[in-house]
């Protein structure tokens, strides 16, 4: 029997609908509308986690994901990996799985989730390219209408938000619906596997910290980061009376 959230299958469907709505809106906010950075993993994961029932669990996922993708920027026509799709789907899958397994979002669950879903960041980029092709069709439509003397030809602009919304909403909903399988995997993890997955999650944290330093594109950044890191370690050890 698959582990389900407290309310059973109807509860799971409700969570899928919530994840679809928030995931879809985040896909729109990421590039097409507002750009208040509400779609960044640091914001999206805790907000979606809160909506699904575990904000702290969402934050546990959001911070390392934010650091991993901190350096990704959309310059001109180049597209970075889609961190929002990954953060949304991972939160949609891991948070309900943690609730169903009774463990909450812990390091082993996060490590399994990341290993399974990381390719979504690359897939999201392909999805964005597809969306751009669709937008090029919208532009042709607008040009044709303008040539016929339609002053409102550019109103098709907002139609460009539909594809990212729909695709992200569907993928996030699937994440929730697949969460019982992840919960089952977590429940079946024994002692050595748990220790292994826990260390794997800390290793990801190390990569995330390295990505954060790399994200600051300045030649002085590594030296400044190293000096600051050494200072923080020394102060912490001194405060705790270990040095």
């Amino acid at each position: 029997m698959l582990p389900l959230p407290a309310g059973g299958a109807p509860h799971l469907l409700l969570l899928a609908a919530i994840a679809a709505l928030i995931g879809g809106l985040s896909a729109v906010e990421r590039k097409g509308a507002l750009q208040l950075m509400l779609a960044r993993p640091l914001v999206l994961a805790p907000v979606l986690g809160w909506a699904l029932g575990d904000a702290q669990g969402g934050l546990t996922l959001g911070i390392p994901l934010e650091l991993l993708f901190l350096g990704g920027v959309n310059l001109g026509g180049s597209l970075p990996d889609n961190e929002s799709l990954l953060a949304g789907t991972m939160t949609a899958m891991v948070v309900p799985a943690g609730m169903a397994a009774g463990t909450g979002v812990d390091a082993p669950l996060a490590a399994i989730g990341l290993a399974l879903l990381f390719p979504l960041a690359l897939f999201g980029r392909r999805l964005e390219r597809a969306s751009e092709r669709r937008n090029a069709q919208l532009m042709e439509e607008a040009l044709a209408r303008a040539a016929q003397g339609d002053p409102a030809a550019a109103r098709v602009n907002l139609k460009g938000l539909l594809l990212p919304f729909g695709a992200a909403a569907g993928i996030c909903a699937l994440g929730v619906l697949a969460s019982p399988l992840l919960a089952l995997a977590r429940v079946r993890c024994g002692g050595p596997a748990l220790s292994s997955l826990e260390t794997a999650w800390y290793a990801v944290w190390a990569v995330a910290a390295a990505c954060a330093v790399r994200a600051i594109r300045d030649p002085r950044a590594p030296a400044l980061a190293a000096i600051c890191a050494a200072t923080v370690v020394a102060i912490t050890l001194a405060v705790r009376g270990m040095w």
Partner: protein
Amino acid sequence: MIPAALPRPARRVLPRTLARVFLRSLFLQAAWNPRGMQNLGFADAIAPALDDLYPDRAARAEASARHLEFFNCHPYLAAAILGGAVRLEERVASGEASPQSVSSFKSTLGPPFAALGDGFFWLALRPTAALAAAATEPFLGLGCVLVFIVLYNLVHLMARVWLFAAGYVRAEGVVDAVAHAHLSSGTPFLKACGAALAGAIAARGVVDAGVPGRPFQALLVASGIVLAWAALPRLGATRSVYIALFLGALIGAHFF
């Protein structure tokens, strides 16, 4: 010296219309496409102003079609160009300038403003605000999310509104106004803050792994950060993450 506001053209858009143009500018990239880039968004954003300036449908359609030309800029800095384009359209509608002046204004300012915005907002402010939030997470918990949103959007929204207003008031003179805004001089300072915060976050990982009494784990995490930093340009984030997961799992299972 920032130039004074331009003399008012005979035909003008209403303040309410300006607000509508600004709100629509928040959707500038809704239909971003490789050929025209932000052209649809720009034409859609300026449409309410054209409705005010050109009561005649044919003239309005002609003005609208002009804005379907290629346009690309940083989405925030584009607010200055949009504001300036509205002012120039007022002059065109009043017969004080040629339609070509609007196109020239957009195509001249787009690339330099894009570079300025990318450097300040994407490469300095956003990473630094995110790192500040991540660094305060042990003390603030979920409150760190607000640190990011407030730090980033306080600067971002104020800049966007100011740029739009400055563009509308000064048109071509917006270049001087932006030059006096210290965007490029603030970038190195923000990056230095970001680097220091990234170091603090790395230190937190090392301390968490090593305290209490686990110096080997602390050394392992510190080495992991340095190795990952060195390998990232060659491996990329995806491979680095999977290698980290694999090696971490092996170490955790006591294979080493």
